[in-house]
């Protein structure tokens, strides 16, 4: 519905009364006249609509810039934030990023090109490694049907070496990028802080204009990366609850100590936050390596863990991981708060224990470290939804036996599953071919997949067994061979 919104667009303050539910992509193209941001899919898969979004960082200590798919971004999300489009980046002519792409002839039809330029600009702007692999990975969310990517890859590699010495801390890095023209200096000068939101109550908290209650309902939105895929043209009148942008809800903290310690993740925690978190990495060492298997950089920067769970997709990757990490949920609404195990949250296909106006407010993970593995079978290695996914976690006791084994699997039933029989086959035993083979057989028995566009039921069963074998090989390297497990 119509709301007063205040944000910065390409460095300039914008104050409008805008449809908060409107995708930013449409607003940019139809109302702001900025057509360099383009629609290729309207579901987050192509990257033609990327823009840079400036927001408060997780710690609340400053600002961070992410690349975001504007087709999945509600205009209301911009309140108190800043957006930079390709026009802003190119405000003073082609930037070094654009020139690097240009000299490689990495723009053919050109439809994808602004998105690619935004993604690579973000690569330079963002924290994190700046090696060739990271440069190339930064465009994993950009589809290009013309170039075959070789030229884009060459440009990305060239940028990674041309900018290898960029300073680490954000203000100095921003200044360095401005000095080299990656971001026009006048624009860069506006990128260190955010404007006040139009609504005193904070984002999403502003009273509707005219005071009437929202007609179209108020769905909670995390990043909107699931919601907008299903609602590509939301009706005017809708007034989403922007859970994902409530600073109070974006936190990761350790609660309690000793045996009962938990790590609490607020509803606003994004997938990227999750994998970057030291506390999470302490629970499941090495979990960060699985980050690239989930969506793409620009989806991960906005998608929330809570949204992944609440969406109740049977193939949700984070949900599979959280199940294996023995997560519990805190649901809270007008009628109070309650806590339940994640495994009990799913009641049936896309049916959950959420009722009324309740939201998932917090996700709790036991803090004790465990060995962890995740596997996913999908058509394409990156940016694809799983046909089947599975996670496994366990601890090994002093006698070498597996304890507290949890196996999860998605895509093999109507909801994300905990495979209790498979886990039981492993519990208390030493890792052995026999134990894992029993677990694989048990898993086959306790799932009932269906056939759909992502794979047949038989394929899903078969691949699940192999993914469980892959867990075994990863967690106990050298202990057995794939051949033995599959024999």
């Amino acid at each position, binding site marked *: 519905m119509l709301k007063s919104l205040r944000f910065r667009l390409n460095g300039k303050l914008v104050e409008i009364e805008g449809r908060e539910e409107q995708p930013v992509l449409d607003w940019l193209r139809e109302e702001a006249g900025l057509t360099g941001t383009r629609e290729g899919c309207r579901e987050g898969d192509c990257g033609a609509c990327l823009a840079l979004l400036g927001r408060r960082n997780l710690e609340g200590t400053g600002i961070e810039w992410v690349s975001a798919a504007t087709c999945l971004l509600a205009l209301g999300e911009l309140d108190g934030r800043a957006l930079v489009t390709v026009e802003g980046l190119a405000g003073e002519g*082609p930037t070094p990023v654009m020139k690097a792409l240009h000299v490689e002839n990495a723009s053919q039809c050109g439809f994808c*090109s602004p998105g690619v330029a935004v993604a690579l600009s973000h690569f330079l702007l963002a924290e994190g490694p700046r090696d060739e692999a990271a440069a190339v990975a930064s465009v994993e969310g950009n*589809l290009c049907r013309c170039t075959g990517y070789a030229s884009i890859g060459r440009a990305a590699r060239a940028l990674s070496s041309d900018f290898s010495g960029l300073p680490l801390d954000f203000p100095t890095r921003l200044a360095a990028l401005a000095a080299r023209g990656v971001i026009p200096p006048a624009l860069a000068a506006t990128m260190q802080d955010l404007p006040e939101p139009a609504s005193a109550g904070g984002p999403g908290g502003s009273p509707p204009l005219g005071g009437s209650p929202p007609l179209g309902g108020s769905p909670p939105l995390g990043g909107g990366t699931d919601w907008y895929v299903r609602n590509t043209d939301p009706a005017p009148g809708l007034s989403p609850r922007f859970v994902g942008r409530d600073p109070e809800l974006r936190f990761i903290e350790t609660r309690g100590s000793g045996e009962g310690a938990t790590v609490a993740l607020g509803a606003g925690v994004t997938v990227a936050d999750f994998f970057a978190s030291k506390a999470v990495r302490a629970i499941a060492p090495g979990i960060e390596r699985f980050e690239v298997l989930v969506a793409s950089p620009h989806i991960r920067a906005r998608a929330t863990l809570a949204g992944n769970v609440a969406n109740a997709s049977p193939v949700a990757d984070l949900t599979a991981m959280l199940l294996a990490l023995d997560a519990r949920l805190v649901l809270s609404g007008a009628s109070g708060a309650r806590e339940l195990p994640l495994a009990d949250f799913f009641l049936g296909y896309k049916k959950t224990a959420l009722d009324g106006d309740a939201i998932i407010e917090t996700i709790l993970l036991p803090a004790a470290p465990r060995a962890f593995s995740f596997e996913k079978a999908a058509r394409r290695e990156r940016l694809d939804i799983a046909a089947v996914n599975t996670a496994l976690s366990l601890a090994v006791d002093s006698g070498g036996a597996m304890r507290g084994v949890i196996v999860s699997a998605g895509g093999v039933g109507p909801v994300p599953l905990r495979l209790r029989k498979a886990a039981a086959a492993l519990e208390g035993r030493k890792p052995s071919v026999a134990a894992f083979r029993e677990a694989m057989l048990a898993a086959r028995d306790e799932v009932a997949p269906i056939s759909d566009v992502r794979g047949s039921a038989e394929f899903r069963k078969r691949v699940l067994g192999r993914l469980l074998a892959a867990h075994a090989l990863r967690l106990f390297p050298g202990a057995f061979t794939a051949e033995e497990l599959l024999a």
Partner: protein
Amino acid sequence: MKDRSAPSALAAVRFDPGDRPESLRNLTGATKYLDDLPEPANLLHAAVVPSPSGHGRRMRVDASKARELDPSVVVLLAASIPGENQMGTAVDDEPLLADGEWHYAGQPVALVLASSKRLARAAAALVRVTGEELPVVTDPREAFARGELILKPRVQSSGDLAGAFRAEAEGGKARWIVEGRAESDGQEHVYLETQGAIAEPVDGGLRVVSGTQAPSGVQKAVARVLGVPMRELEVEAMRLGGAFGGKEDQAAPWAALAALGAYVTGRPVKLVLSRRDDMRMTGKRHPYSTDFRLALDAEGNFLGLELDFYQNAGAACDLSPAIIARSLYHAAGAYRIPAVRAAGYMCRTNLPPFTAFRGFGAPQAIWAMEAAVSKAAEATGIPALELQRRNLLREGDLTHYGMKMEDCRAGRPFELLLSRNPAARLEAEIEDFNASHADRKRGSWVIPLAFGVSFTKLMMNQGGALVHVFSDGSVSVSTGAVEMGQGVGRKVLVVAARTLGIPEDLVRIERTRTATVANTMPTAASTGSDINGAAALAACEEIRKRLLAFAATFLGAPDNELSLGNGLVLRGGRDSGLAWKDLVAKAHEARVDLSAHGFYATPGLSYDMQAERGSPFAYHVYGAALVVAELDTLRGSSRIVRADLVHDGGVPIDALVDRGQIEGAFAQGLGWAILEDLVYGKDGKLLSDTLSTYKLPDMRFMDFPIDIELLDDAANPKAVLGSKAVGEPPFQYGIAGYFAVLEALKAARPGKAGFFDLPLTQEKALDFLDGGN
């Protein structure tokens, strides 16, 4: 393995940063595509209502809910069409809007017009289409069995087939006869810019901006639908956000619908398809099911080949006859086979009419032929490389359709590729890897290429250009070529600048408009720069001739001493003191015509459809590709780890553009071979109808070292400035990806026979790994 940083022929080529302003416009977001144009205030937005299922009749359309949503919504049906309700070009079997019956899911039934895109789409979703369901056929062989053929079968044959297949035991030479079936699925174009058009009433006629490869085709189609003369319609194509054949014939319906809306309402109308509608409503690469049979003698020489192509044409003719023709021509791939029978059946099914897609029927044929080679290698124990080398086309060979191979270069790239990757080293590379990795296996495949260039439909090999030299010396070039990222504009520009001897920045390439250059052919069949470049060349040569004649009088020099170069009139190769700009100004004063129209019709083409004999191609493009794949035997997934391509590009007009075409086509070919999975349900509905379910190559998929070497000393006398067409041929290199993965699978299951069911997905790989022998 080759070091990624090692320089290869093309790796070091770069654009000059100041060059190619359109590429910088793309990258800064300044380029305008159809949907980026400013919208007139009274614009109506359109959305299309699709048929509800794969096949039905007694259609009823209820639009009351749509009108309830907003009374200003306009709903147009077949009955609203003032002219002919017909889009078919070869056969009249494709109504613009379904009338009474429908033949595939996603067939346009109604056009909805509203004041906003959101409203138009919402209203379209409320239009109810019902009727009586009829049986749905999606399988081409089933359609064939029911006699559902579009046009009669086409058969090409040569040599003594019976003799070729006579076994040694029967006194013949055939030591081995291998046979089998090769299935290949369709492929979605995924041009990043979806289909669209804008139609606007102007001066009693209509101006249509269409996202099309064929502005004249759109003009003709719209004229027919509206029942108005072509002169009342001006069609313009802006830069397209990709096309790949998908906007050759199939851009016309959307333009016709927008024009219909504008005609009926008198207001401008814009129709831009959502990605999902685009995927559901438009045709793709044809799925084929092909039977193959190949006879070999004791040495591995190919004696005879039989191929039966069951082409899944979809529900209407569209371009299927031209596409099956290209399949037939490429039945033997890059091989010499004395006796061939190739038959093509265009089978009518209840799927969207399949259409042009880069390669245009050749990939399906080359794939089936290569399946036969793979099977022959299995049966004979002779390595595939050896079979290929032994049977490559040679100079003077006669193809099975009677074309003599002249300037045949099938062997050169193949040998060059093998000298870069000697067979023994390649084998050792793979074997060492496989011996030292338990859970991973590698496989490799080399594919040779001979791809015929020209439209398979003879009359289409023509094109025009209009060149104006303005009085300040700057130049405007219009042709029928549509720029869609393939660099045709760039190539035409180079041709014009070189011919007039002027710097490139004096030349501008205009958008493609039917009132400027008329009766043009689609920019397709890789011929865009061959034909339009040659037409521009003719026009520029005409102007050059006039200017030099003028210069001769002006300078008092014999005109055979004069030429144009470096922006000057040259006399005996040296500065005559007369600069281009002054020449033009003075010629203009002297009333010399500074404009010229150029025309080009590809010479030397002939084909006798009755005899199925002739020379349908101006020349062939040759090449060879090596692809190495790695299989994860535990998970059944695979990825490409390196590729090496040697390509015959003639003398490229712009090597960088050609490199981009080769890399892009190769990626699409690999996508088709091992990744992209077009899934239709038995009910004829497309299941993979979004980019979240239809996966095409991404950065990661293509992130492996690719070496590309262009054949040198390769000038092509048959095309403009010695160049060769480049758009489609390299697509076929991707086919090697299928066989590389298959070889890796066979390394994991030694002794097990291969299978030919493209694309080679993880699911099929696991079936192979888990299945019995």
